């Protein structure tokens, strides 16, 4: 690096020029972002250490080259257009503004970056200074988060569909059962009455051979009710079999991924999240997305309960514990708590205490827990609020 500063040492005659040059070099060396200076013909003049790190070229390799080698093929012509357009018309599309672009590393990787360009004129010649911030790491996290959210959303939809279907199947089966029972009763009552009356004249039956008897009609009513029941049962089975894939997971990772989704909401609401990962916990054999879904529901409920209580010092704590071939994850809040009225029906589908709720959240959580051979239970902490404990079996893995 010393050698480079010697190379670019301007022929300074005054001491403050020398000082300035020193600062220039210091700036170039110390900048975390890539700094690239090009002339009006797009030739690279300066290429600082961060640029070398980000793009993977040494200064020697790149100085004197057209800056377009640092851009993906598809973007190169755009760059030339920008520069020519600016030089011809003075219209800046990027200069002084900055935008998100893609860069090309020496190894061929294309990466997202934030590019800002400034112009400087020295001795009637235009020079452009580009400052580049590598976005790939940040994007990586964002992409991962988006991916997680999408996966969760998908799982959520599938499970909601399953639970919805199961709920509807139950609700519709009830009246269907009543219909079938009434039809059964009607048919029996009619044959009893018919047997008591004078035997039906054979002529009258022959008159309308195609006319169904009351008994036939009752029978058909019953048949159709049972047919509707079968349709619903088939639908329920179809939806049930569509999801769930279990493998070994670290519960700490599942919890961490869950809390990641609440980053924004938590900051917005002032609620404190207490969670200490316990790395001594054994792995569990679960569908991680479904377990995450339970936790999302529980944390969300906790936040809602705190909002409902209106208290400014809301706390949601997540505790894990392994004991007796069982892993428990408790989500506790100091919010409004569950009323006595709601207690009985807490886990029932379509029951909700929230003004805009559907009443499927906890019911879904419970069925996920049960399909994992576990349990989801509610208890009241002594200091108020609510505590939901998810218990999962520590089944033998592999």
């Amino acid at each position: 690096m010393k050698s480079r500063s010697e190379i670019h040492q301007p022929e300074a005659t005054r001491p403050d020029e020398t000082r300035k040059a020193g600062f220039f070099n210091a700036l170039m060396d110390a900048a975390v972002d890539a700094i690239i200076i090009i002339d009006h013909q797009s030739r690279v003049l300066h290429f600082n250490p961060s640029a070398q790190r980000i793009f993977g070229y040494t200064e020697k390799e790149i100085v004197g080259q057209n800056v377009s080698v640092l851009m993906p093929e598809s973007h190169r012509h755009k760059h030339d257009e920008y520069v020519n357009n600016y030089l011809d018309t003075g219209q800046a599309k990027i200069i002084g503004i900055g935008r998100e672009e893609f860069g090309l590393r020496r190894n061929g990787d294309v990466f997202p970056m934030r590019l800002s360009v400034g112009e400087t004129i020295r001795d009637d010649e235009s020079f452009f200074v580009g400052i580049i911030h590598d976005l790939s790491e940040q994007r990586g996290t964002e992409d991962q988060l988006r991916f997680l959210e999408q996966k969760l959303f998908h799982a959520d939809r599938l499970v909601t569909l399953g639970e919805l279907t199961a709920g509807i199947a139950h609700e519709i089966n009830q009246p269907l059962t009543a219909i079938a029972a009434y039809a059964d009763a009607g048919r029996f009552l009619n044959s009893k009455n018919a047997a008591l009356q004078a035997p039906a004249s054979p002529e009258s039956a022959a008159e309308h051979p195609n006319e169904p008897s009351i008994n036939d009609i009752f029978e058909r009513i019953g048949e159709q009710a049972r047919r509707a029941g079968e349709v619903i049962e088939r639908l329920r089975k179809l939806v049930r079999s569509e999801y769930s894939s279990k493998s070994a997971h670290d519960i700490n990772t599942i919890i961490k991924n869950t809390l990641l989704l609440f980053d924004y909401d938590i900051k917005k609401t002032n609620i404190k999240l207490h969670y200490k990962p316990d790395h001594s916990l054994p792995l569990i054999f679960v569908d991680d997305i479904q377990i995450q879904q339970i936790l999302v529901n529980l944390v969300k409920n906790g936040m809602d309960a705190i909002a409902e209580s209106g208290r400014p010092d809301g706390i949601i704590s997540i505790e894990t514990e392994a004991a007796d071939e069982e892993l428990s994850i408790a989500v506790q809040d100091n919010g409004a708590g569950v009323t006595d009225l709601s207690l009985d029906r807490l886990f029932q589908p379509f029951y909700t205490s929230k003004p805009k709720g559907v009443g499927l959240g906890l019911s879904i959580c419970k069925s996920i827990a049960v399909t994992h051979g576990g349990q989801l239970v509610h208890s009241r902490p002594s200091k108020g609020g609510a505590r939901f404990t998810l218990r999962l079996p520590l089944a033998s893995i592999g």
Partner: protein
Amino acid sequence: MSTERLVCVVDDDDAIRESLRVLLFTHGIACRCFASAAEFLDQGPQLAIHCLLLDIRMPGMDGLELFDRLRQQKAAYPIVFITGHGDIPLAVDAIKNGAHDFLTKPFRDGELIKTVQSAFDAFQRTRNEMERLEVLQDRAGSLTPREREVMKLMAQGLPNKGVADELNISPRTVEIHRAHVMEKMCADSLPALVRMVSQLGIDSPDQ
């Protein structure tokens, strides 16, 4: 069908309770309906129940919990679960634990009445067994302590000589006791007597 037989229905759904009541009524079967397990626990014990139709899914105490409770109370009547398809595994478990049968909703034509009928039959069989046992107990109660001892040893397969040695009495006396035992117990053969002793549960040597 006799109207003295009583079916109880526990189901939280009004329409199901009412339709079952109508269906049973048309077949001349009396029926009492309860909307919750708690309601049934409150009023059920005063009733002479011949069959209980029990829904699995109910708010509050569900059908399975009520079933456990009734088993602890040694309820004598058959219990039939009514269930949706989703809860069939639970109903199957309940049968393993002594429930009489289960019906999936919606019921097939005539299925409910047939199942209730079979529950009545099962109840009748149990009741007959119990009555028979009572008769046997009465007969056994009329035996003298010595005759009772002789009966036990006979049931263990000992010949007269063996019984005589065991009780330190003469074979001739054993023969007299033996004749009294057969007569009082109304047993026409030794195998019949052995079965009675076994039913009475007094066949183990230490009793």
